[in-house]
């Protein structure tokens, strides 16, 4: 029998009142992982003994004047560096790699009193939309273990939705936080580009990557963002702008807000059950006081192609460093270059290779102008689409993905089909804006649907307010997946 995990928002009060202890939370966490991870495969590794030691230390300290996240264990996607822990990016090429340093976001969690706990499954190097590209097998959907979690932060989403993490950090390059959050039924926030330091995030596509929280509630997302956001001298692309009080923005209503519906996100290609759930959510927002308007994002249809050119180009350079010379797996060869070839051929998975080859091609002499340069121009047009849309409204409402989670294996042989599933999420990364995924219903076969709230760059408080108001008015997020019920969750 397992108790349910508290949220980030409630835990400090429970600890202060003596209703629970950090040790008890950690024990619940460990027990849940022990029982569910063999099925869900959300964690690649975790150290329950270390967490227990840490919990005892925290419990021994005074509860007065504690930092914001004192006693909160936070799950970490395997792409983020935590000093002394593995950082394998779910790849065989980094199988035995142990990181020598903390990512800035991780360091900030620690400073706030949290424990970076465990290594969460993902698509290899964050390349994928189903978590099936992990070298250690896919994480599985807590609502139906025969279905994908989405990706690439599939382990983070499955852990939070499956009662195996109080909250988690993921990364979002083209939807990798929002889409698995939608597929698994938890909250996922992709901050604006430059809001959270990328230092210590093993880069996939540097101009698109952002770190963000996956949580049980919108309020939890606001709290975690508060901790990890802000300028970092170690990341030149992190913006030096004040961080607002996100929790204070959660007013619970939408009075006076204008919310836009991008026409291009409500097309025939979307699963009717997704459209139905999102339409219902829009009605709910109207009831909460929002004015709903239609807007256009005319360059949406070029977004997936643009994204896969820019992301793969950057990835081809970012992943060049994995050559076995300084760290990671190494195959010997006749000379260094031969050794590199053998190492990379043996230890990179097929999707990673596909993207490196694609990225190498689009940057090659003679093709650069036609692909990379043109993609950058389209990216500017997509950014302008959003700027124009946000002249007419405060935030946008849309589906996160055209479908709900699909059965494991369904799309593994059809990468293009897989890429097209990213249509509604890649745009936010291309434009550098922020996006939130909130549970908004279930399909007939009992799989969660996500509502996406998109906001202008550096207006996370706006989308958090919308998501929070909607969440308070509905109870989708209270649903408990079968995996939790089966082993005794209440």
């Amino acid at each position, binding site marked *: 029998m397992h108790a349910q995990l508290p949220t980030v928002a409630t835990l400090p009060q429970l600890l202060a009142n003596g209703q629970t202890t950090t040790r008890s939370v950690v024990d619940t966490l460990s027990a849940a992982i022990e029982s569910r991870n063999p099925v869900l495969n959300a964690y690649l590794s975790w150290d329950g003994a270390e967490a227990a030691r840490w919990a005892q230390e925290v419990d021994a300290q005074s509860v007065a004047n504690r930092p914001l996240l004192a006693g909160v264990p936070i799950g970490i996607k395997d792409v983020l560096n935590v000093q002394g822990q593995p*950082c394998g990016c779910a790849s065989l090429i980094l199988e035995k*790699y142990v*990181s020598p340093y903390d990512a800035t976001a991780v360091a900030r969690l620690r400073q706030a009193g949290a424990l970076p706990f465990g290594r969460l499954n993902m698509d290899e190097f964050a390349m994928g939309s189903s978590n099936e590209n992990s070298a250690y097998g896919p994480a599985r959907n807590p609502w139906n273990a025969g279905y994908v979690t989405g990706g690439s932060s599939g382990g983070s989403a499955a852990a939070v939705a499956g009662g195996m993490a109080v909250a988690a950090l993921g990364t979002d390059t083209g939807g990798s936080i929002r889409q698995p959050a939608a597929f698994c039924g938890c909250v996922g926030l992709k901050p604006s580009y430059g809001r959270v330091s990328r230092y210590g995030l093993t880069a996939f596509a540097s101009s698109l990557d952002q770190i963000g929280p996956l949580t049980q509630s919108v309020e939890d997302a606001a709290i975690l963002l508060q901790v990890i956001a802000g300028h970092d001298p170690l990341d*030149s692309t992190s913006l030096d702008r004040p961080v607002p009080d996100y929790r204070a923005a959660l007013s619970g209503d939408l009075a006076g807000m204008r919310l836009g519906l991008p026409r291009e996100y409500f097309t025939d290609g979307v699963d009717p059950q997704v459209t139905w759930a999102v339409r219902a959510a829009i009605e709910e927002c109207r009831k909460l006081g929002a004015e709903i308007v239609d807007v256009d994002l005319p360059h949406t249809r070029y977004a997936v192609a643009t994204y896969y050119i820019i992301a793969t180009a950057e990835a081809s350079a970012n992943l060049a460093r994995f*050559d076995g010379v300084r760290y990671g797996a190494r195959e010997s060869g006749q000379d260094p270059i031969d050794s590199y070839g053998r190492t990379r051929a043996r230890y990179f998975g097929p999707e990673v290779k596909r993207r490196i080859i694609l990225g190498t091609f689009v940057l090659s002499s003679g093709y650069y102008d036609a692909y990379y340069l043109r993609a950058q121009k389209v990216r500017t047009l997509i950014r302008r689409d959003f700027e124009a849309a946000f002249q007419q409204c405060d935030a946008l409402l849309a589906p996160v993905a055209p479908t709900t989670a699909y059965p494991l294996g369904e799309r593994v042989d059809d990468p293009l089909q897989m890429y097209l599933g990213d249509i509604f999420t890649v745009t936010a990364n291309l434009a550098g804006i922020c996006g939130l995924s909130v549970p908004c219903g279930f399909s007939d076969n009992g799989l969660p649907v996500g509502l996406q709230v998109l906001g202008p760059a550096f207006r996370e408080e706006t989308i958090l307010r919308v998501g929070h108001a909607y969440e308070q008015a509905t109870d989708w997020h209270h649903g408990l997946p079968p995996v939790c019920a089966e082993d005794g969750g209440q």
Partner: protein
Amino acid sequence: MSGANPYKVSIGLETHVQLKTRSKIWCACPNTFGSDPNTDVCPICLGYPGSMPVLNAEAVKLTVMAGLLLGCRINHYSKFDRKSYFYPDMPKNYQISQYDQPLCTGGSVPIEVDGKPKVIRIHRIHLEEDVAKNNHFETASGVDFNRAGTPLMEIVSEPDIASADEAFAFLQALKQMLVYGGITDGNLEQGNIRCDINCSVRPDTQTTLGTKTEIKNMNTFKGVHRSLTYEIKRQIEVCEQGGKIMQETRRWDDARGVTTAMRSKEYAHDYRYFPEPDLMPVVLDDAQIDEWRTALPEMPQARRTRFITDFGLPAYDADVLVADKPIADFFEATLAAGASPKAASNWVMTELLRMLGEQEWSVSEARITPTMLADILRLLDEGKINNPAAKTIFSVCFTEGGDPRAIMEARGLAQVSDEGALDRWVQAAITANPKSVADYQAGKKAALQFLMGQVMRASQGKANPPKVMQALKAQLDG
């Protein structure tokens, strides 16, 4: 070549200069030379997963100052790009460099060959990171990443250089300006300055440039001169025999004194440049550029003029002294320690430069300091030592250092001016050499020099020569 040369030579140099910053270009590791392998490293300069570069502002400042010294246009907007290639010396397997928007464009370097002045135009100067150093051992290779991430400035010349001599003069002039500007230490042994050579020849009547070859990674100016002398001759011979120059990269074999073609596999690269997404563009305003302009140190020409007018040095002395900034600095420091300009200049130009040349040392390697030299000159001036003793003390200070007065005392080099002692040596010399005395008295002046030598020998070089002369004359003439 004698007579009119029927071929024109066009040489362009890409000169890589390590900047004299305290830390590396993207991280806080020290920018030093000679540490144990892989000790001045961190996750950033080792290219560890998740690490990110942060641009060292000092490196931008020094590059812009170099641009100002060379009369370049300083670009208000420039950016960094990734240059991709796989090689063990490159931790990320891409080098962060500047592709199409460098910090500086245009500019020139004045040179002089055989008394003829010429201006070599500069195409551009950009900033990038240096790579690691590969070391090859008997059965294995190792990579030392200490050098990885050293700020490196690349100065690309136009193909205005027309001979090996001009190339040599260009590098000398460039080095002098950059060392003067405090941009680099300019230490060739430590690889502070390295260059790639582009060289082509064409018949005098042809207007377009001939096919060029590239000689990579030259780290001595002498090597540049020798390799160019060889390569120009080789290209002309190929043309003379009706052959075609292949566009290729060649390697200089210093031992054999020849250039040889590298296998195409070794250099054929598509670098796949694209803008570096981890760094923001460099934006400079006029106020910033002007501030750096006023911070530029004195250049050799201005210093030469000052040496002549302020210190009354002959033009020749001034030329010799300013040619090497550390020497000129040593000289000025000696004056500051109290020496007279002419004496200091003589000693720096003769003793110091001679001994540095013999040892093949730079000034910083010699143990003598400007204060030591000033003290030696003071002892000389006060008549405490004679010239030979001064040279001996100088030599000791040069190799071992120490207090000149203490050395004088310890080695008994103090000059003897005591009249009693001098008289005894003079008397002894006169008594022992009656023939010389007779010769002198018969009008042979040279005999006096002989007697003088006898006295000096008897005193083991310590007698005060003018006083000896005085005493001898007094005895013989008296």
